C-alpha cells in the first residue's frame, strides 16, 4: 500500500486532522514497546488499528515508523499482519528506517509456520527499496523451493516484484529460469498461473535486449506448452483460466482439426457463470476461426445465447461490459442477430450508457423483416422522459431510414415527430428529414408539406435551424413562404448567434434567389450586406465570395451555389474499417468498451505483455527482391521537388498581386444598385475559358497546402544500404522482438494521395529511397505496409509499419530499430521519402 495522498478535501468533523493525534500515538506506542505486561498485545492491537485507519483516510503516520518497528517483536499474528501492512506502505519513503525491518522480516522468513513465512516474504518483497534488494535474493530462493505451496505462490510473485525493483538482480539470480521450471512442474495450478504472469511480464520487458528472452516468450505460445495448459484448464481457478485463455488466443494451430480439438475442449467454458471466462473463451473461438468463414459464422450463432444470458444476469456493471462486446459483434455481423432484436429493447430503468449501446444495436440489426417493429419501439422512446435518450432514439430512426430500401413507413413516423410539438423532438427530426431528403429526394413533396408548417421561431437549436434553412433554400420553389421566412430570418441576423446557421442562411437565400428572384432580391441584398459585415471570418468570406461571383456572372454563381445534385447514396462511416478490425483483434479488453484501439488510450509501456504484430502474417508478401534502384534517381527527385516548389512560389506571388479588390462595406442599396444590372448579368452567357481559369486557381491553392519540405540543406547523417535484403520470417521474428522505437503520424501530400491508388505505387517510390517493402495490403482508402531498411555497410535493421488512410491523407508510422539510437535519424529519412511521394 502506498502512502495515501494527503487529503485535499476539508476533513469532516469525525476525521481527526492529524498532528496531535499522531504524536499521541507515538507516545503510547513507546510505552508499550518494552512492556511485557499481560494483555499488552490487546492494547497494541488497538493502537495499530488506529494507525492503519489514519493511514487509510490519508493522514501521514510515517513518523511512527521507528515505534511501529519496535512494537513488532511479537508472536501475535494479527499484530504482525498490521505491522507488515504499515511497513509495506511507508518503507519506500523511509528507506533508512526500512533497513530496521529487514531483520525481523528475514527471521520470520524462516519461521516454522508456513503462513508466517509467506507473509514475511511478501512484505519483504513489497518494501520497494532499491538498496535492500540484496536481502531479497536469499529468502526468495528458498521461498521458491519451500515445501509449502502458499510460500511458493508468494515467492513467485515476489520474483516479479524484485524484477520491478531491480531487473538485473532478478536476472542475475537466474530467477526466470527457476520460475520456468516451476511453471512446468509444480502441481499447484495457482503457482503455474503466477509463474505465467510473472514470466510474461519479465520476458516481454527483456525481449528488446535479449534474444533468449524473446525466444522464451515465443515458446509460451508453442504447441507443447499450450497443450500442457489446456489439458488441465479445469484445475485452474476461474481467474487463472482467463489468463490461460488469453494466451491461447495467440497460439496459431497448424491445421483445422487442431482448431476443432481446442474448441471442443473449451466448449463447456461458455457455460461458466463468470463473464470473464466466457468472454475469454469467445475470443479464442473467434480468433481461431478467423480464416474459416463458415465455422466463424457458426461461432457467432453458438456464442449468442451465453452472452445474452450474461447480459441479463449479474450486476448492471457486469452486463454493461458483456453488452459492449455483444455490441461489437452485432455491428460486425448484424444479420446473425436480426431475429434477436427484442433483446436490445431498452428497459425504462437502465442507465443511459446501456440504452445508448442498445439503440445502436437496434439500428444495426434493422432489416426488411423487423424494421417496422423496431421503429415502432424506437418511437416509444422518443416520448421518453429521458431527453438525451429520446434524441438518440429519433436519430436511430433516421439512421434506419437511411439504410433501408423501403422507407415509406419511416418517413411517416419522422413526420409525426415533427408534429409532436416537443422542441427537442422537432429539432432532431428536422436534422433527420434533411439527411433523408439528401438521400431520397423523391420524398420532398411529403416532407416539405410538413416542414412548411413549422414555425422557425420554435426551432432554436443551431443544427435544427440550419437544417430547416437548408430545406427552405433547397425547396424554395415548393414552399410558398420560403422567401418571406428567409427574409424574416435575415432581418434578425444580429440575433442569430450560431455562425453555422448564418452560413446556411446565406446559401439558402442565394438558392432561393435563383429560383424566385423578384421575391428574394431584397432579402439577398440584406443578407449579403449583413454577411460581409459579419465579425465571423467564414461568414464574412462566404458573403464576399457570393457577392463577387454574383457581380462576375449570375449564371456561374448559380452553377456554383445551386448545381443539380445527386442523391447521396451512402453517408460516410465515422470509423475506418482498419480501426474496427483492430478493436476486434483486441476483443475482451477495454478497447471494446471505449470503442477505440488500445494505442489511442494506453502508453507504450503499458500495452499488454504479449502484444505481437500478428497481422503481419495476413498481409501479402511484397516484392522485396526487386530492390534495384539507382541513387541517381533519388537526386533527380530532389531537384524536381526543389524546382516545383520554387515555381509554385512564383505563381502564388503573381496571383496575389492580381487580386486587389475593393471591399464593399456599404449598404445593400449599393450592392445591388438596380434591377437592370442583375438582369444584364443573368443574360451574360458563361464562357468555357472562365471556368478553366478558375480550376487553375484551385490547383494552385492546393499546391500551397502542401506540407513543408524538410530542410534539404542539412541531410540526415544516416546512410541506407540500397541493396538491403531481409527474409520475411526474419522480419516477422524481429518485429515481435523489438519494442516500438518511434511512433508518429505523418501527412501525405495531396499528390501522394492521388498517386496511391494501389499499394505498389508507394513500394516503388520508397524503394528509390532504399526503404524496401516486405508486405503490403489494403484497398483505398486504407493501406498498410511493412517496410524495412538497413544501415549502409552495417547489419543494423529498421522495421516500419505504416498505415495510410488516403481520405485523411495521414500515415500512422511505427518504427522499430536494432540500433535504437539512430531511429530518430531513420525516422526523418522515412518522413522525407514519404513526403516526396507523388511529386514528379
Amino acid at each position, binding site marked *: 500500500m502506498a502512502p495515501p495522498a494527503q487529503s485535499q478535501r476539508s476533513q469532516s468533523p469525525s476525521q481527526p486532522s492529524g498532528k496531535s493525534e499522531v504524536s499521541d500515538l507515538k507516545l503510547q506506542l513507546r510505552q508499550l514497546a518494552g512492556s511485557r505486561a499481560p494483555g499488552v498485545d490487546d492494547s497494541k492491537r488497538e493502537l495499530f488499528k488506529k494507525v492503519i485507519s489514519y493511514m487509510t483516510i490519508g493522514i501521514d503516520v510515517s513518523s511512527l515508523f521507528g515505534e511501529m518497528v519496535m512494537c513488532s517483536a511479537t508472536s501475535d499474528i494479527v499484530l504482525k499482519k498490521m505491522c507488515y501492512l504499515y511497513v509495506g506502505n511507508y518503507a*519506500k519513503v523511509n528507506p533508512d528506517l526500512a533497513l530496521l525491518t529487514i531483520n525481523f522480516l528475514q527471521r520470520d522468513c524462516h519461521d516454522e509456520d508456513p503462513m508466517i513465512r509467506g507473509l514475511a516474504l511478501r512484505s519483504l518483497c513489497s518494501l520497494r527499496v532499491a538498496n535492500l534488494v540484496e536481502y531479497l535474493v536469499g529468502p526468495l530462493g528458498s521461498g521458491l523451493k519451500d515445501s509449502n505451496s502458499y510460500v511458493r505462490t508468494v515467492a513467485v510473485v515476489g520474483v516479479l516484484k524484485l524484477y520491478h525493483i531491480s531487473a538485473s538482480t532478478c536476472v542475475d539470480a537466474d530467477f526466470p529460469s527457476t520460475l520456468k521450471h516451476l511453471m512446468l512442474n509444480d502441481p499447484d495450478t495457482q503457482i503455474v498461473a503466477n509463474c505465467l504472469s510473472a514470466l510474461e511480464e519479465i520476458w516481454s520487458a527483456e525481449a528488446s535486449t535479449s534474444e533468449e528472452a524473446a525466444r522464451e516468450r515465443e515458446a509460451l505460445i508453442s504447441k507443447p506448452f499450450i497443450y500442457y495448459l489446456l489439458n488441465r484448464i479445469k484445475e485452474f*481457478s476461474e481467474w487463472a483460466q482467463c489468463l490461460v485463455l488469453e494466451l491461447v488466443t495467440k497460439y496459431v494451430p497448424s491445421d483445422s482439426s487442431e482448431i476443432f480439438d481446442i474448441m471442443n475442449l473449451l466448449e463447456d467454458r461458455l*457455460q461458466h457463470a463468470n463473464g*470473464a471466462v466466457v468472454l475469454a473463451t469467445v475470443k479464442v473461438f473467434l480468433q481461431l476461426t478467423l480464416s474459416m468463414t463458415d465455422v466463424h459464422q457458426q461461432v457467432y450463432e453458438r456464442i449468442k445465447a451465453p452472452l445474452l444470458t450474461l447480459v441479463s444476469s449479474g450486476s448492471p456493471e*457486469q452486463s454493461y461490459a458483456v453488452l459492449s462486446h455483444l455490441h461489437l459483434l452485432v455491428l460486425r455481423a448484424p444479420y446473425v442477430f436480426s431475429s434477436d432484436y427484442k433483446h436490445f429493447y431498452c428497459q425504462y430503468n437502465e442507465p443511459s450508457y446501456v440504452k445508448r449501446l442498445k439503440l445502436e444495436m437496434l439500428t444495426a440489426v434493422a432489416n426488411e423483416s423487423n424494421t417496422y417493429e423496431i421503429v415502432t*419501439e424506437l418511437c416509444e422512446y422518443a416520448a421518453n422522459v429521458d431527453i438525451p435518450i429520446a434524441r438518440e432514439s429519433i436519430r436511430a430512426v433516421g439512421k434506419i431510414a437511411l439504410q433501408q430500401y423501403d422507407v415509406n413507413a419511416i418517413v411517416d413516423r419522422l413526420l409525426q415527430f415533427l408534429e409532436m410539438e416537443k422542441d427537442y423532438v422537432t429539432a432532431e427530426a428536422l436534422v433527420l428529414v434533411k439527411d433523408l431528403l439528401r438521400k431520397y429526394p423523391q420524398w420532398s413533396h411529403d416532407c416539405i408539406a410538413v416542414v412548411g408548417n413549422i414555425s422557425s421561431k420554435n426551432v432554436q437549436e443551431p443544427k435544427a435551424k440550419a437544417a430547416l434553412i437548408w430545406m427552405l433554400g433547397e425547396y424554395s420553389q415548393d414552399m410558398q413562404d420560403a422567401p418571406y421566412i428567409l427574409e424574416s430570418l435575415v432581418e434578425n441576423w444580429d440575433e442569430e448567434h450560431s455562425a453555422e446557421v448564418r452560413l446556411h442562411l446565406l446559401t439558402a437565400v442565394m438558392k432561393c434567389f435563383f429560383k424566385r428572384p423578384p421575391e428574394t432580391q431584397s432579402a439577398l441584398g440584406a443578407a449579403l450586406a449583413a454577411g460581409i459585415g459579419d465579425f465571423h471570418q467564414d461568414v464574412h468570406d462566404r458573403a464576399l465570395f457570393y457577392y463577387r461571383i454574383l457581380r462576375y456572372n449570375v449564371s456561374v454563381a448559380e452553377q456554383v451555389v445551386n448545381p443539380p445534385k445527386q442523391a447521396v447514396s451512402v453517408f460516410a462511416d465515422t470509423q475506418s474499417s482498419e480501426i474496427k478490425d483492430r478493436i476486434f483483434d483486441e476483443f475482451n479488453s477495454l478497447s471494446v468498451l471505449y470503442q477505440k484501439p488500445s494505442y489511442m488510450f494506453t502508453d507504450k509501456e503499458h500495452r499488454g505483455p504479449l502484444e505481437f504484430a500478428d497481422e503481419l502474417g495476413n498481409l501479402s508478401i511484397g516484392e522485396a527482391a526487386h530492390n534495384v534502384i539507382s541513387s541517381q534517381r533519388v537526386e533527380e527527385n530532389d531537384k524536381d521537388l526543389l524546382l516545383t516548389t520554387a515555381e509554385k512560389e512564383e505563381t502564388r506571388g503573381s496571383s496575389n498581386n492580381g487580386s486587389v479588390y475593393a471591399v464593399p462595406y456599404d449598404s445593400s442599396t449599393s450592392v445591388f444598385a438596380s434591377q437592370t444590372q442583375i438582369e444584364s448579368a443573368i443574360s451574360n452567357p458563361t464562357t468555357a475559358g472562365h471556368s478553366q481559369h478558375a480550376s487553375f486557381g484551385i490547383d494552385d491553392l492546393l499546391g500551397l497546402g502542401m506540407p513543408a519540405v524538410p530542410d534539404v540543406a542539412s541531410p540526415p547523417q544516416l546512410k541506407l544500404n540500397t541493396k538491403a535484403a531481409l527474409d520475411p520470417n526474419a522480419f516477422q521474428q524481429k518485429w515481435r522482438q523489438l519494442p516500438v522505437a518511434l511512433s508518429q503520424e505523418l501527412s501525405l501530400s495531396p499528390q501522394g494521395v492521388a498517386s496511391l491508388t494501389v499499394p505498389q505505387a508507394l513500394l516503388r517510390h520508397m524503394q528509390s529511397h532504399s526503404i524496401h517493402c516486405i508486405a503490403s495490403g489494403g484497398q483505398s482508402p486504407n493501406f498498410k505496409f511493412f517496410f524495412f531498411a538497413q544501415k549502409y555497410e552495417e547489419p543494423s535493421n529498421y522495421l516500419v509499419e505504416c498505415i495510410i488512410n488516403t481520405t485523411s491523407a495521414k500515415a500512422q508510422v511505427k518504427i522499430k530499430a536494432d540500433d535504437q539510437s539512430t531511429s530518430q535519424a531513420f525516422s526523418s529519412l522515412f518522413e522525407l521519402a514519404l513526403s516526396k511521394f507523388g511529386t514528379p
Partner: protein
Amino acid sequence: MISQFFVLSQRGDNIVFRDYRSEVAKGSAEIFFRKVKFWKEDGQEEAPPVFNVDGVNYFHVKVVGLLFVATTRVNVSPSLVLELLQRIARVIKDYLGVLSEDSLRKNFVLVYELLDEVIDFGYVQTTSTEVLKSYVFNEPIVVDAARLQPLGPAAIFMQGTKRMPGTAVTKSVLANEPGGRKREEIFVDIIEKISVTFSSSGYILTSEIDGTIQMKSYLSGNPEIRLALNEDLSIGRGGGSIYDYRSSSGSGAVILDDCNFHESVRLDSFDMDRTLALVPPDGEFPVMNYRMTQEFKPPFRINCLIEEAGQLKAEVIIKVRAEFPSNITANTVVVQMPLPKYTTRASFELEPGAVGQKTDFKEANKKLEWGLKKIVGGSEHTLRAKLTFSQESHANITKEAGPVSMTFTIPMYNVSRLQVKYLQIAKKSSSYNPYRWVRYVTQANSYVARI
C-alpha cells in the same frame, strides 16, 4: 492486472485503500470521485462503470451505496475486473455478515487481510471464501443488521417476512452459534426477475425471466449435494426466433433459452435426470443462472386511462389486478407514472376502505407514485388521480404521460415453474439432518405498461 483497489463511501471518503503496484498517482481516489460525481454537467447521466482519465482506467461497481473501485494502466479485460470487484464485495460480505459502510469501517483490518490474499501485485490469487479462511485471523465485529440496504437478490428475504429465517443470511462465515456449535443449514433460493412490456392495448410486447438459483451453505465437512430440477426441463429453443411463442405454449414443459453454472457444479447426470451435483463452497454463490423467454402468465395486469376533463384538467385511472393464487401475497408494490411536464397538482382518490396504500405526486420530476404494502392474489386495486395543468395541452395527452411502471416482490411464487424437486445431502450418519431452506421469490425487473 490491477494497480489499486479502493472502497469509497457515498461522500467520497476512503474506507479502504490498497495500492498493489504503485503505478498510478496517489490522488486517484479523488480524481475518480470527482469524475463520477460530475460526469455530465447537468448531473442527469450516470458515469459508465469504466472510464479513462489521463491514461488511468477506472473500474467501479456500486454495492449497497459504496463504490468499489479498481485502477490500472493496462488494457485488461473489463469483465474480469468488474467481475472481480463484485466478487470482492461478496467475499467481504461473507466475512462481515453484512456489508455496509459501518461494518467496513469497523472491520477494515480484516478487510485488508482479505485484500492481501485476494490480489498480489495486481494479479488475482483467489476469491474463494473457503480458501481465504485460513489466512484471516481477525474476528469480525458484527454490526446491527436492522436498517441496512440489502445486498444481492437473497436479501429480499430479510424484508420483514417472518417466515424467513432472515438472520441466517446476515451471518458471517466465521460466526458460530452461541455454545460454540455451528448450526448446520443450507439455503437454496430461486430468484426470478421478470421483465414485461405491455402495449397500450394490453398485449404483451416482450417478456423475459432472468433467474438465479442462489445457494448459501453452512454445512460442515463439505458434503456433496444433489439438486434435482424439473424433469421436463429443456434448454435451448433450437432454431427460429426465440420469441416464437407458438412453439412452446400448451406443452407445459419448462424451456430455458440458456443457462450457465457455477464452476463447482458437475453436470454428469444433468442430461439424464436434470440433477446438479456440487460440493458447495462456503459463502453465497449462484449455482445456476438462467434466462427464459417462454410465455408465462404475468402476475399483474395493468390498466391505465388518461382523459382530459375540461380545461387544464385531466383524470388518470390506474387499475392493477393480481393474477396469482389468493394464498400468495405480493409486497412492497410501487406503481409509478410520469405525468405531463405542465402538471401542477394531482389529487388522489383511493378505493373505499383501502389499507396500507400511499399516494404521492413528485413535483420535481412530475411523477405519480402509488405504493401498496400488500396485494393479495386475485384482488384488484384502483387509483384515480385528478390532474391540474398550468397550460393547455396541444398534442395528444397520452404522448405526454406514461408509461406506467411497477416494482414488486412476490415471495413463495415463481412464474417460470422451474422447481427444485429435492435437495439431497450426501452424508453417512443417519442422525445428520441439517436444516434445508428452499425459497422462491419473483421480483419485477422492468415491468411496464404503455398507455
